[in-house]
């Protein structure tokens, strides 16, 4: 597979080009050697560290035991025996589901609404993407007070006469983590919209005109041309947002301090951080991290494979 990639970039060059010469080979070797140092470091820091984390998860290493003895699956058994970790898994599922639903749903809606030119579209786009430039900590601080039970959104609801919609948001154990997904989606919806909009605008005008010639109404154009074109985008957006939701750590930390009431805003990332860096139980922390790694790889393999085939 790798050797088919070599001639690909050269296929379209004119025939006047000299045949692969000694010089060309030398140049390729030079290029590979120049690439080597930084790429080696990146690969060690990424893959080396990921494997080291997985290795540690099978050991009994902590701050008093530097021997790193092999303990098999003990850390994993402890985790699955741990009530907090079970809450974290449930929280993660709810969080990812609501986060993805908001980003994809609103992002797609906004992209479709912005597809055809409209007065003020640049202003709208700037506003929607704006939260992406705002850090998760700042977002968390703002929403901590927006969702504070005594004020913020609840106060707005009261002022609008729809006080029955009031909620304790992140302080309400039954929906705590879903409340946290709202600011998370606030940050990433504009980004998702940009992905969909790039796809919609990328549909050639020929195709649009052809659809119009065939008498397609606006709705039919979207139903039979635009929506199918967005399926691959939906897939990559799901992977990107899913990965982001797995590594969410800052936002609950800024909103509720991390764990929240009865661990209702606790995610595995927070549990992992406390275990490894506050309790110094490195191996147990590594076991949590390893599970996240495995899930990430499962999510990413089809994505990378698709990228590879293009």
């Amino acid at each position, binding site marked *: 597979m790798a050797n088919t990639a070599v001639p690909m970039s050269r296929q379209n060059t004119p025939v006047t080009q000299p045949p692969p010469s000694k010089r060309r080979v030398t*140049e390729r070797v030079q290029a590979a050697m120049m690439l080597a140092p930084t790429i080696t*470091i990146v690969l060690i820091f990424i893959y080396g560290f990921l494997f080291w984390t997985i290795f540690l998860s099978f050991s009994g290493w902590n701050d008093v035991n530097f021997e790193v003895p092999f303990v098999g699956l003990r850390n994993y058994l402890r985790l699955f025996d741990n009530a907090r970790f079970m809450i974290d898994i449930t929280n993660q599922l709810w969080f990812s589901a609501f986060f993805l639903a908001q980003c994809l749903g609103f992002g797609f809606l906004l992209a479709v609404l912005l597809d055809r030119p409209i007065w*003020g579209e640049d202003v709208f786009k700037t506003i929607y993407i704006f939260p992406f430039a705002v850090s998760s900590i700042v977002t968390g601080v703002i929403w901590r007070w927006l969702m504070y039970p005594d004020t913020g959104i609840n106060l707005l609801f009261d002022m609008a006469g729809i006080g029955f919609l009031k909620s304790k948001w992140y302080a309400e154990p039954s929906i705590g983590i879903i409340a946290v997904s709202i600011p998370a989606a606030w940050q990433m919806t504009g980004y998702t919209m940009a*992905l969909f909009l790039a796809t919609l605008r990328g549909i050639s005008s020929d195709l649009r*005109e052809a659809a119009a010639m065939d008498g397609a109404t606006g709705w039919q154009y979207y139903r039979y041309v635009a929506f199918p074109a967005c399926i691959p985008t939906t897939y990559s957006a799901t992977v990107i947002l899913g990965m982001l939701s797995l590594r969410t750590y800052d936002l609950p930390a800024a909103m509720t301090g991390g764990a929240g009431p009865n661990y209702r805003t606790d995610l595995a990332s927070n549990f992992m951080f406390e275990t490894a860096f506050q309790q110094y139980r490195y191996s147990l922390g590594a076991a949590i991290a390893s599970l996240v790694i495995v899930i990430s790889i499962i999510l990413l393999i089809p994505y990378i494979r698709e990228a590879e085939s293009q």
Partner: protein
Amino acid sequence: MNRSTPYLSDAIRFIILAFFAIYFIMPIYLLAITSFKPFEDISFATMWNLPKGFYLDGITQAWTYVSQNFMNSIIVTLPASLLSSILGSFNGYLFAKWRFPGSRWLFLMVLFGIFLPYQGILIPLVQVLGALDLYGKYAGLIIVHIVFGIPITTLIFRGYYSAVPDELVDAARIDGAGVLGVFRHIMLPLAMPAFGVSMIWQFTSIWNDYLIGLVILSNPDMRTVMVAVKNLTGSFFTNYGAQMAAALIAASPTIIIYLLLSRLFHRGLLAGSVKG
């Protein structure tokens, strides 16, 4: 108006878009009005009232909390963004124009780094930085941001260089330029817009980082601004006005960059999702 595709009237579209615009701007609006209120006007009941005037008390007080941390973040963010962009420009060029056996797989492996779940590397990271005597130092954090920035900067530059015609490269080779010569004389001069995109992207993500800075810089005097802002939320002596003002200070560099350079920002946004 194009008769063929009216699926909703422009007025209805505009109303829905404006509704979402209000939703997205509301938290920033709250951040701004709260930050410019005098302390005595900070109360839960009057959260949504406009400030009576333009008061800088809150900002001034918050600045005394976070000014040192703000500087610390600059010390880390600027060199890390610049160096990761320079390395990315070089790697992107080599991946785009000098494919060798295995380079595609190597590139895909680097690509994976963009999605890296940070939890997965933190424990070895702390160990290795400790062994290299870089733990707790700015240099350590800068190096980490550079290394984890290389995947995205490489991707941004590779996409940019791929659009440069191979004929330009071949012409320069006929004139005797080698791998480095082509980079210096052909590619680098063309790459300035990509540097803009890459620098903005890196500045934003490094400035906004919380977790890596928290783990690597344990000394309170060296904390980054995001760590300082987060710590303010846990303290009881500050009211929400001071927290908001500190948050506004911490957010201002990336907000200003976004508003001034939104076009470049937008391009970086899409680069992260392109297919390899």
